[in-house]
């Protein structure tokens, strides 16, 4: 019994390490293949346009509603202590330091990440990647690297849009509907948000999330079994692993940056 448990444990540790090693090797290959991105920037801009378009509406609408909720909840708490003038600062800091980057990354994994996985997985299943290799074109350079960098570029931009729309949502609820003083709302925000400690850290977070989520999406698609079930499983894994990775990295980065 104990031997069985131990051998199961050993097997799962070994396979986990092997999977991690394979992912690490693919990541290194992807970075090494990124020279094409500089030589042919058009490949990346096309993908930024594609991925950005995919996620823009869901990001903007989610940002607006998160801003609404922050405005309501923030007012409810701050009002107890008579400091509702700080509502603008609360909304802005919550979005810029945490929610903007994290929620954008989670939505990105669900929207653009899944479509990247399915696209690459189906290209593999349809022998398109093998056909490319036989035409002396490296899929890593031509297909994966441009999509990777497009995701890395798109993520901070989408997070910025999320935060901006969220602040607007907080303003609509807090100032327009509840009646918090407009001057206090904006001036507290202006005085309290630091460009380096808050905005830059938020951008760094979403950059790291962009690397993680986009790589997971591409890797899952690239390694998917070339069958309908294989692609379906890979798409699910992208969302599950991508989301958990974002939350784990967020904890790690927050601990490093703001402690």
């Amino acid at each position, binding site marked *: 019994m104990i031997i069985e448990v131990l051998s199961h444990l050993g097997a799962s540790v070994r396979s986990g390490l092997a999977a991690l090693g394979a992912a690490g090797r693919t990541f290194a290959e992807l970075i090494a293949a990124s020279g094409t991105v500089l030589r042919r920037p058009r490949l990346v801009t096309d993908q930024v346009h594609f991925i950005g378009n995919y996620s823009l509406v869901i990001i903007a609408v989610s940002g607006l509603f998160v801003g609404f909720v922050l405005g309501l909840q923030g007012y409810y708490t701050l009002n107890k202590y008579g400091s509702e003038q700080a509502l603008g600062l609360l909304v802005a800091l919550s979005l810029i330091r945490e929610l903007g980057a994290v929620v954008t990354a989670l939505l990105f994994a669900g929207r653009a990440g899944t479509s990247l996985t399915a696209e690459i997985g189906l290209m593999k299943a*349809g*022998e*398109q990647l*093998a056909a490319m*290799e*036989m*035409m*002396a*074109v490296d899929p890593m350079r*031509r297909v994966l690297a441009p999509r990777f960098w497009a995701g890395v570029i798109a993520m901070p931009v989408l997070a910025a849009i999320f935060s901006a729309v969220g602040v607007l949502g907080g303003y609509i609820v807090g100032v327009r509907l509840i009646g918090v003083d407009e001057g206090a709302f904006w001036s507290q925000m202006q005085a309290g948000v630091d460009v380096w400690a808050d905005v830059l850290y938020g951008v760094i977070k979403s950059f790291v999330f962009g690397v993680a989520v986009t790589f997971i999406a591409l890797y899952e698609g690239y390694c998917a079994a070339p069958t309908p079930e294989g692609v379906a499983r890979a798409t699910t894994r992208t969302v599950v692993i991508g989301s958990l990775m974002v939350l784990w990295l967020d904890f790690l980065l927050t601990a490093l940056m703001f402690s």
Partner: protein
Amino acid sequence: MPNFVDIRDLHFAYGERPILSGLNMQFPKGSVVAVMGGSGSGKTTVLRLIGGQLRASSGSVTVDGQDVGSLNLQGLYAMRRRMGMLFQHGALFTDLTVFDNVAFPLRENTHLPEEMIRDLVLMKLHAVGLSNAAQLKPAEISGGMARRVALARAVALDPQLIMYDEPFAGLDPISMGVTANLIRKLNDALGSTTILVSHDVHESFSIADHVYFLSQGRIVAHGTPQQMRESDDPYVKQFVHAEADGPVPFHYPGRSIAEQLGMREGA
């Protein structure tokens, strides 16, 4: 005539499972050679080994004097620029138009100006009768047309070696005849060497100079189509005359139906 592709004592296995054993095959320059056999006989694996997508366990594959197994990635890509391959289902890029599919290898592997690429692509598409379908997407054309587009793409760089993986599978009789004629004509016009993997006896025999029969990873017979038609080899006879039973059994090996139904004690 010298051999463009030469396979010597080739063995290949997926892990413990042997796929090809002791293969010797020669593909002379300028000829059309058919590799035939049932599903799972290892035909496609031979193409993948020649293209360097798989590495042999032992033995050698030589393409135009170069040992494929010893090439690094750059060497492989340089060799593949002289090869064209038609995949079983065409493998067209579904997000690109017919025109862009054929232009793809030209744009990626050459520095030709766009006007010249346009002329070359239209000429290739004209050769397969589809220059007027240039702006359609792969989803908008029939299976037979998609196969012809893939054929135009495979010969876009005027390759010295063209490999076809089941080019006739799933085609109607008209498309099948058209595709077979195109394969022969393109080979003769380009002066290239053609390897045709297929299980379609009629079409393959009509265009091939030489035929290899594979069964369970071994060559069981080879010769000209005429020699194969007259062959007494039981496997070749079963295959050429499409007989249901013979050396290739109709039933998947295992217990008899009586045993499965519990009418007799199992062995």
